[in-house]
């Protein structure tokens, strides 16, 4: 390799981002790289903004950093997630289930949703996308089982993420890395020694100085560590998050329920032993948002939503909230944190010259966040009457050229415009557009070729197969309870 290989990495902050990053690096990097985690006060202050739901990408991500379901489920109150049900969403009070799902069928070379547009003209009752998505049918009945491999079984099309609490994951991650080779220091940063944009060392409050080849910043934006480039966030909105937890014996539901409120929204997330409520609102409407909690919220955080333009400058890399904070409206927040870590793993510097690594990291970061925020922005109208500060601010956020093409193409002809390596796939976008009432004006002319009788039969078959499958599955609660019993028994 090169003459001055990377030897020391310092992770600053032991919030969710810092702990995940530490778990990933200690699992995947060779032993001779020294990893220090500095547990700095307040690093988890904005963790609520990672939300409570992940996408199917979490399964592999966690496995890669050394956490399998038998580690995860019994120790972290985590449950399975088939998606989010949006209720009374937006000015039109729309409701739909945004589920995780593998590719919808392509029939005779035509994507499935075009057939629904075709049939919708005459038989609107047959054009409901949700009837044909196995994940949605399972979510509606609150049933769950791990999807099998056999593609003939409708359940094999289901994908799942997790419902989680940031503090429960922090606890689990802290236990895991305590057994790994990471040096953990509990102290605050007194002074950052810099030479231009290069970090030379951190003087800690315990009188030690930390030197490293690469400093990974897992604090908040505008922390003592932040560089000028990282302080420069794109967003303008300030949001307040509040959460409460209601313990329950039997928790039904395998889908997060997110209800639009005048003040913003409230999400109810079913976990193993209770239901978690998260509300998001503009600072001016806290009182009314807090009323959406059954008991007074126990945790409150406020953050400015936005993305910085260069997370990696010289030997200083900002990941997670130190580089970007998203509204926890979709699983984009946690998905993009995972992507930050994956991007870093692929680009662990090979020498002290990090020009190539930082440029490529920043390029991918920019694209990922551009695509992720487009998905979130897609959940709001572009104009219309807004009732409160939250909705007004959300609607006045700009629509990117890419999002504009996606919406225009879908509304015009049901075409799903896709860019390179997007965090959200075709199926996510089709569900989002249709959920938001963006019904294509035309459909693929090739969809016309299927005789109507065959089309009706095909639709009926898919629908019946899904319903019949859903009726055979155990409730999520029972499935999870039994799985936990099995994991625990195996562990003993």
């Amino acid at each position, binding site marked *: 390799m090169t003459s001055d290989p990377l030897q020391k990495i310092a992770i600053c902050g032991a919030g969710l981002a810092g702990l995940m990053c530490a778990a990933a690096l200690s699992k995947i990097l060779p032993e001779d790289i020294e990893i220090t985690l500095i547990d700095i006060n307040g690093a988890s202050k904005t963790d609520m903004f990672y939300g409570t739901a992940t996408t199917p990408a979490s399964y592999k991500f966690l496995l890669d950093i050394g956490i399998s379901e038998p580690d995860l489920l019994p120790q972290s109150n985590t449950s399975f997630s088939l998606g989010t049900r949006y209720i009374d969403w937006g000015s039109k009070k729309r409701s739909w289930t945004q589920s995780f799902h593998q590719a919808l069928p392509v029939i005779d070379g035509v994507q499935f949703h075009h057939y629904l547009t075709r049939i919708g003209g005459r038989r609107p009752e047959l054009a409901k996308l949700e009837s044909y998505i196995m994940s949605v049918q399972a979510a509606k009945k609150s049933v769950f089982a791990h999807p099998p491999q056999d593609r003939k079984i409708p359940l094999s099309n289901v994908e799942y993420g997790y419902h989680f609490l940031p503090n429960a994951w922090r606890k689990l991650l802290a236990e895991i890395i305590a057994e790994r080779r990471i040096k953990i220091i509990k102290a605050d940063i007194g002074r950052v020694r810099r030479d231009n944009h290069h970090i030379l060392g951190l003087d800690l409050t315990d009188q030690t100085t930390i030197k490293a080849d690469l400093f990974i910043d897992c604090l908040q934006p505008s922390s003592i560590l932040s560089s000028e480039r990282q302080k420069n966030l794109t967003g303008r909105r300030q949001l307040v998050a509040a959460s409460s937890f209601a313990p329950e014996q039997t928790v039904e539901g395998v889908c997060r329920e997110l209800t639009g409120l005048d003040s913003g929204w409230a999400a109810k997330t079913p976990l193993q032993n209770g239901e978690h409520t998260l509300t998001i609102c503009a600072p001016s409407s806290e009182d009314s948002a807090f009323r959406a909690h059954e008991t007074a919220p126990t945790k409150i955080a406020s953050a400015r939503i936005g993305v910085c333009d260069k997370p990696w400058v010289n030997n200083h890399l900002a990941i997670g909230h130190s580089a970007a904070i998203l509204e926890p409206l979709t699983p984009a927040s946690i998905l993009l944190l995972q992507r930050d870590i994956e991007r870093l793993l692929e680009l662990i510097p*090979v020498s002290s010259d990090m020009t190539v690594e930082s440029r490529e990291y920043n390029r991918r970061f920019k694209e990922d966040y551009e695509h992720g925020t487009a998905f979130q922005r897609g959940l709001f109208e572009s104009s219309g009457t807004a009732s409160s500060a939250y909705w007004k601010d959300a609607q006045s956020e700009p629509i990117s050229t890419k999002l504009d093409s996606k919406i225009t193409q879908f509304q*015009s002809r049901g075409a799903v415009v896709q860019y390179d390596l997007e965090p959200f796939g075709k199926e996510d976008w089709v569900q989002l557009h249709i959920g938001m009432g963006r019904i294509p004006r035309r459909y693929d002319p090739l969809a016309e070729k299927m005789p109507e009788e065959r089309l009706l039969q095909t639709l009926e078959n898919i629908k019946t197969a899904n319903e019949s499958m859903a009726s055979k599955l155990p409730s999520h609660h029972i499935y999870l309870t039994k799985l936990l019993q099995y994991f625990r028994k195996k562990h003993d």
Partner: protein
Amino acid sequence: MKIRNICILGGGTSGWMTAAGLSNKLNGLGIDIQLVESDQIGTVGVGEATLPHIRFFNNSLGIDEREFMRATRATFKLGIEFCDWGRVGDAYIHPFGDYGEPINDIDFHHFWLRLWQLGHKSRLDDYSYPILAAESGKFQLPGPDAMKIGSNFGYAYQFDSGRYAQFLRRYSEARGVIRTEGKAVMSSADPETGFITSIQLEDGTSIEADLFIDCSGFRGVLIEQELKTGYADWSEWLPCNRAVAVQCEAAGPSLPYTRATAREAGWQWRIPLQHRIGNGYVYWNEHISDDEAAHRLMSTLEGPALAEPKQLYFKTGKRRKLWNKNVVAIGLSGGFLEPLESTSIHLIQEGITALLELFPDKAIHSSDIAEYNRRMDLNFDRVRDFLLLHYVATQRDDSEMWRYFRNMTLPDSLQEKIEAWSHRGYLLRYEHGVFLPPSWVAVMAGQNLLPRAYDMRANALTLEDVKMRLDSIRRDSLAAVSQTPSHADYLKHYGAAAKEIA
């Protein structure tokens, strides 16, 4: 209002591929498709070598592989051999398949580089079944188990593109495409929209249509001569502007790969078909005269020439809008990129696929045009970068042309790719575009551009473990090749050889 008539102007490979693709998919929708071509106008017969994607095209048309191969005198193709590109005397094969297999999600070449840097040097090619099979002139179709070596590679064809056009003509005519013999001399346009409403042929016939596909070749009769769309000239990056082509008799059994040999002022292709070999010299006329180029070509033929050499003139680049108003340019009318990586037919195919996915109404939406052009621009740009890579990832400086490339400022998209590879073996990935990371590895490593460092995660495995895994892949690949029949025998037994040849 729906499209009722489509007029394809020009036969040849692009015209008949378009006719076949559209007639197959639009069949039964009450859309009339006409194709106008003139026997007086020769076709260029772009690229006789293809990429694996053509199999999807043929499959979607429901074409039987054996029948197609017999009709077009096709051979199988496992990749392209590049001679004299990195340095004079070098050779490597760009295969249709990966090198080795990723370990813990880390690309194979990092492990190979780790051993290389420790002095355990081996050919990267030895971990690629398609390369090893090609080198020994062997071929068989991939097996059913995609996890196994000898089953997870791609393959394409080398064929007679004139016969392919004929084959697709029969296919299209059987599906209702009307062929009209004639030469377009004039067209009429709607004064308000500028849409072409009809074209007039030499004999006075007028053909009206809602949508025109311009497959008229370099001239771009509708897209350029009528609509004045404009051309993005890329000859600054890819300056070769002429070619001379000739077919010759084959001397030995046909090989399952194409060859591209770098020359002082361009490069020479060799494409083996069942019954002959296609040869051509692509060159930059500032550095070699037409006569010299023709002489050079003729003097390197391995068998007697079957015809007089044919001269071609071109300017590398792309139409500013591949779809403009109600005209879609598919094939050479849309742009030209030298056939160094067999992309001509692929770009035709991409054009047809995108057109079908964005098939318009009669009142063509500007959003459909914009999305089509965005997709196709991306395709062209990415192919351009990949072609240019061959000229710049080299140590050659033995002629004016090679020195020209040494001093070139590259497009950022390419520069960053090369830097990331050279620095640490990292590949900038994309999803939409034809050449995937293994292709980039093939060319960069094949032209002696080896990274200075590799992904540090590759050090997480013990050295013994890495050696063992690499050895086992190499052994398995060799074993799989020893079980593979010769390409010529396989063609015959598979039933793909034309009768008069077999």
